């Protein structure tokens, strides 16, 4: 769901950022007027929390795991406007430090997840919870639905943004310049993963955390529940809420979900992770790579939908043709059946490979054979890796290479301009030249190429490559080659569009990696301040980054200690409860620390108005370097028209 650079055209990115701007403006205004000086630390810490939550592996039915975004919970606890800010900040830090979502696509990602997600989540919650008591089980269900709806509407927005790209942006030969799949492919492909896995993850996290708050600090739910009857009676109903997650309500929830899955014809499609949401780490494990390959091939069937049926049904009916009933080519039923069969084949293949490679993992868990990593272990490891990754970047930025010595403002604007150029150009060779410039900058800044290869190039290739691969066959155009046996045509336009997608993503990812590997965060914040970013935003960004480490460490400790105490295998419901409880504990800590941070700020004179010490001077040679960067970017755009 985090859209990387190069998937959306510059005009789409600009349009969505412009659409997001008034929401940010209103959100900032409201946060300032409500003030509630307490909101500033609360938003910062909530953003840090949401960031850490996005790293949790949530166990889902069917033995898979998914990640939540946390916009449901954020809008319930903070209200829609503060939630817009908190999630936007979390997304920014993700994009900058972890390459999760592109820099140019940040506006789009914020629009989908932070703005649409928060508003939809909040509306759903208010509507479903209606006037129920603060501790009623209905609020737990409402929260679950809010999270589920929010992430799905956000995914739909992203799908539409992807889907309009080939329509609007293609060159003379009909080669799509950005995301290559039309709406009829993009929407089902995105929605299938989100209606099932990602949606469930969000549901688990939202309902679990509201249930936790009902138990521990229901006052926090009051803010977004003005109509709830005042609760005088303490303690006793808390149990009720606790049980609500388990018994009848939980069952109702799962039943509702089961219904959704049935109405989603290809619910079983998602094998492992949500489409379009693989993390860089996933690519190092062969298991995940297979899942991605599987999911991307599966993405072909939806493309067969209404009109493009002829060509695609031939793909799917190819292995079946001898047995295919005659109606298989005629109706959407044929599409369904062939898709199901395709999915079934891929799942079977994945299971077979898993069995071959992992050596019957599930059976011999106790016998010292290769153990399947539990979600607890996976999460702990992920958190640890994230921390190490950021610490490494900080170390790198403290060395003295070419980029490291540049003024942060020069870097911010210069590299930003190059990324924008990479997204804007329409010629492959110009793109390649920008990438080469990036490599050159890495060399003179002593940034190890091996690191770029592993963390950027291979990761992006695996991810974007998997998405681009089907486009080679699906993009209409002149066939240059046909696959033996299957007879799938490889089109010239398909090759070019795949080339664009991969090169753009690689170039943008390389450049943003250079920025973060060569700039200390504190300097970057100062640079932002210099460019007129609102003080509140800069202060919140700084605080989010600072507490991200605290929460990463807390969560890591928590999962490690859990791991050491777990004996045997937990059943799925227990695992979900454990994950939601861990998130709840972290939320409790977030709120407690945020209250204390606010006091600590007050104790030193904070009254709600943030003040920063700005001290950066641009020297003549800084201007010169800035001109060189911007000149290179302009040249690239001109050459690549």
């Amino acid at each position, binding site marked *: 769901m985090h859209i990387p650079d190069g998937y959306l055209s510059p005009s789409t990115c600009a349009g969505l950022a412009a659409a997001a701007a008034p929401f940010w403006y209103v959100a900032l205004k409201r946060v300032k007027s409500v003030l509630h000086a307490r909101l500033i630390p609360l938003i910062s810490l909530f953003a840090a929390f949401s960031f850490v939550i996005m790293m949790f592996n949530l166990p889902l039915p069917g033995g898979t795991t998914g990640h939540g975004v946390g916009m449901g919970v954020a809008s319930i606890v903070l209200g829609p406007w503060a939630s817009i800010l908190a999630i936007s900040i979390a997304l920014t830090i993700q994009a900058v430090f972890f390459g999760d979502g592109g820099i140019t696509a940040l506006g789009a990602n914020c629009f989908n997840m932070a703005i649409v997600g928060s508003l939809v989540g909040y509306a759903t919650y208010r509507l479903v919870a209606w006037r129920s008591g603060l501790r009623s089980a209905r609020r737990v269900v409402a929260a679950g639905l809010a999270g589920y709806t929010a992430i799905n509407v956000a995914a739909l927005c992203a799908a539409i943004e992807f889907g309009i790209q080939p329509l609007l942006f293609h060159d003379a030969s009909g080669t799509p310049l950005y995301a290559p799949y039309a709406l009829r492919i993009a929407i089902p492909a995105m929605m299938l993963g989100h209606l099932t896995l990602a949606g469930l993850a969000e549901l688990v996290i939202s309902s679990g955390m509201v249930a936790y708050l009902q138990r521990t600090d229901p006052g926090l739910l009051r803010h977004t529940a003005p109509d709830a009857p005042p609760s005088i009676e303490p303690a006793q109903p808390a149990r009720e809420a606790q049980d609500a997650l388990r018994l009848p309500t939980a069952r109702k929830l799962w039943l509702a979900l089961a219904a959704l899955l049935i109405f989603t014809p290809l619910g079983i499609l998602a094998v492992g992770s949500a489409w379009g949401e693989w993390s860089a780490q996933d690519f190092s494990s062969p298991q995940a790579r297979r899942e991605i390959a599987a999911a991307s091939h599966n993405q072909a069937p939806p493309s067969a939908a209404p009109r493009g049926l002829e060509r695609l049904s031939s793909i799917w009916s190819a292995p079946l043709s001898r047995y295919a009933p005659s109606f298989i080519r005629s109706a959407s039923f044929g599409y369904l059946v062939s898709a199901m069969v395709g999915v079934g084949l891929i799942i079977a293949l994945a299971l077979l490979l898993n069995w071959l490679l992992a050596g019957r993992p599930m059976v011999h868990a106790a016998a010292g054979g290769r153990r399947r990593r539990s979600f607890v272990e996976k999460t702990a490891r992920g958190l640890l890796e994230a921390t190490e990754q950021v610490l490494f970047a900080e170390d790198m930025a403290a060395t003295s290479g070419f980029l490291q010595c540049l003024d942060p403002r020069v870097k911010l604007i210069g590299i930003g301009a190059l990324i924008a150029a990479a997204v804007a150009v329409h010629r492959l060779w110009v793109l390649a030249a920008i990438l080469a410039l990036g490599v050159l900058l890495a060399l003179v800044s002593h940034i190890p190429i091996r690191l770029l290869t592993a963390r950027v190039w291979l990761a992006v290739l695996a991810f974007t490559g998997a998405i681009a691969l089907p486009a080679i066959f699906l993009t209409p155009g002149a066939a240059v080659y046909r696959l033996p046996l299957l007879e799938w045509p490889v089109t010239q336009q398909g090759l070019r569009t795949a080339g664009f997608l991969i090169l753009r993503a690689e170039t943008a990812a390389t450049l943003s990696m250079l920025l973060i590997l060569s700039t200390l965060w504190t300097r970057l914040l100062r640079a932002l301040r210099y460019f007129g970013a609102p003080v509140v935003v800069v202060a919140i960004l700084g605080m989010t980054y600072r507490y991200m480490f605290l929460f990463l460490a807390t969560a890591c400790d928590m999962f490690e200690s859990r791991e050491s105490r777990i004996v045997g295998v937990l059943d799925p419901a227990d695992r979900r409860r454990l994950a939601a409880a861990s998130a709840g504990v972290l939320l409790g800590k977030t709120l407690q620390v945020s209250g204390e941070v606010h006091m600590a700020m007050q104790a030193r004179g904070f009254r709600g108005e943030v003040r920063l010490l700005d*001290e950066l001077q641009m020297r003549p040679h800084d201007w010169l370097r800035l001109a060189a960067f911007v000149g290179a970017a302009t040249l690239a755009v001109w050459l690549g028209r």
Partner: protein
Amino acid sequence: MTEPAVLAFDVREVSYRYNQVEALNSLSMHVKRGERVALLGANGSGKSTLLRLLAGLCFPEHGEISFLGESLTERRLQDEQFFFSFRRRVGLVFQNADVQLFSPSVFDELAFGPLQLRWPAPKIRERVDEVLRAMDIAHLQDRAPHRLSGGEKKRVALASVLVLDPEVLLLDEPSGALDPSSQARIVDFLVSCGNGSKTVITSTHDMDTLEDIADRCYVFANGRVAGEGAPLDILHNVELLERAKLIHPHAHAHARGNGAVQPHPHVHRHEGG
């Protein structure tokens, strides 16, 4: 009017509840100007709550607190002038350094207070540099808080308050969970405050350093004052310390004449010295 001005803080019958739980129960105490007072008590005895009340971060449900003869209320602190002068004169060092260090770097942390109080930029830079050197943390000034050790965090937290040069210093367990050398640094600092120029209120349950850092102690138990007196008198009052759960009876059995215990080094002195 001369009498109240001698008192830095006068706390009269203050009660405070935190999430329905009684934290302070009709508690009275006072601190003179220039005095060093230690608040002794087990975890959850209300020390931290009292310090927050004294710092004007929360306000009592019943009772009254006055600072230099002036009543300290939420209303009063709304007044910008009083707010700034009070914040300038009273500094609180939190027990958890992680909540106090919220800025991106050590330098920014020290500059935070002066910035809020609207000092001019050159004066801020000068004062921050001075405190960085005085606290021996100048080499850390560009360090991010997550890159500091526990002892460094405590020193930076202390420095971030000292930068305003407050008359009254409120310290919540300043030497808790530190290694001996970091602890000694903090204690040395507190000892150096003994010339009467600063009022220092320290909450602690570390009794080894008590007489070095305090002229007078209050012992807290269950949100009330269980005892008050000079450090040595308090340390000798075993019954009081046991009641306040500051010592555990069997650990001190030999102090009451049980000779069957093996000789062992004492962490703190029971006999006056």
